[in-house]
């Protein structure tokens, strides 16, 4: 069993209206030191398979296929091996 933590964000040149809106809100709350906000998605996905290279292939495949839109988003991920007892 593996836990994949997947982070999805827009490509840098794409407008991120959510990030901009949160930044403005933080400024209004007087956190002036905040200079940049990116708002993305975060997935924690458990996969019942103990072969790390299989799991990597799977995570990369379904992230490309479903979790992100390759035209505008990028993702990175980490794998954590879980004891199968979990």
């Amino acid at each position: 069993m593996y836990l994949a933590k997947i982070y999805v964000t827009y490509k840098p040149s794409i407008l991120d209206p959510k990030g901009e809106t949160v930044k403005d809100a933080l400024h209004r709350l007087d956190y002036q030191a905040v200079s940049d906000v990116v708002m993305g998605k975060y997935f924690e996905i458990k996969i019942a398979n103990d072969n790390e290279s299989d799991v990597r292939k799977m995570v990369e495949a379904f992230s490309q296929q479903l979790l992100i839109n390759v035209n505008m988003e990028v993702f990175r991920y980490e794998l954590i091996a879980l004891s199968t007892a979990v």
Partner: protein
Amino acid sequence: MKAAVISFPGSNCDYDMYYALKNWQITPTIVPASVTDLTAYDVIFLPGGFSYGDYLRTGAIAQFSPIMQALQTANAAGKLIIGICNGFQILTEAGLLPGTLQTNQNPGFICTTTALHIVNSTSAFSSAYQKTDINLPIAHGEGNYYIDDEQLSQLKANNQIIFTYNDNPNGSVANIAGVTNVAGNVFGMMPHPERAVETILNNTDGQAFFTSIINFLNQKTEAVKA
């Protein structure tokens, strides 16, 4: 009688509420969320829409608008404060109402007309209804009311649940569609009574909602006079 309809950046049902209120003997004013004083108004409405795009969480950013301090003051004075749809979401985010509104159980915006049951027919928001089941429009993507078991039993014990769904469209805990605070002066609901006050729009089940509020306010003024 004077009503404030608060317009947050991104509110889009503010004029719908304004026009609905004009049908009663009440003078509505659209008040921008940058205003800091609401003492002139007898009743305050927070309309539907997408304040700040609902980009972070529904109602999350709006709760820090300048007007919110004035809203707290109005609440302390026991004034009626009513949030519809996004207004409900803002009131829960601001802690003026219990619970939270979450993504619909089947994610996606739904716009339809839905049947409601009036659970508490003695509140300031429901007393004029002559029937126990009504139909009102809904239009939301995040109307799934969540509250933990302990607070739910308090809601029930205090008769704070005013409306429930007959056919739960969004997965709300205990089918809850509209609730008040403990004192009974702050109310929020996801359905849109302001969309159901004219025969030409094929639904008048929202009329008694406004009549209830007017009756309540009139009784209050008479009580003060007496």
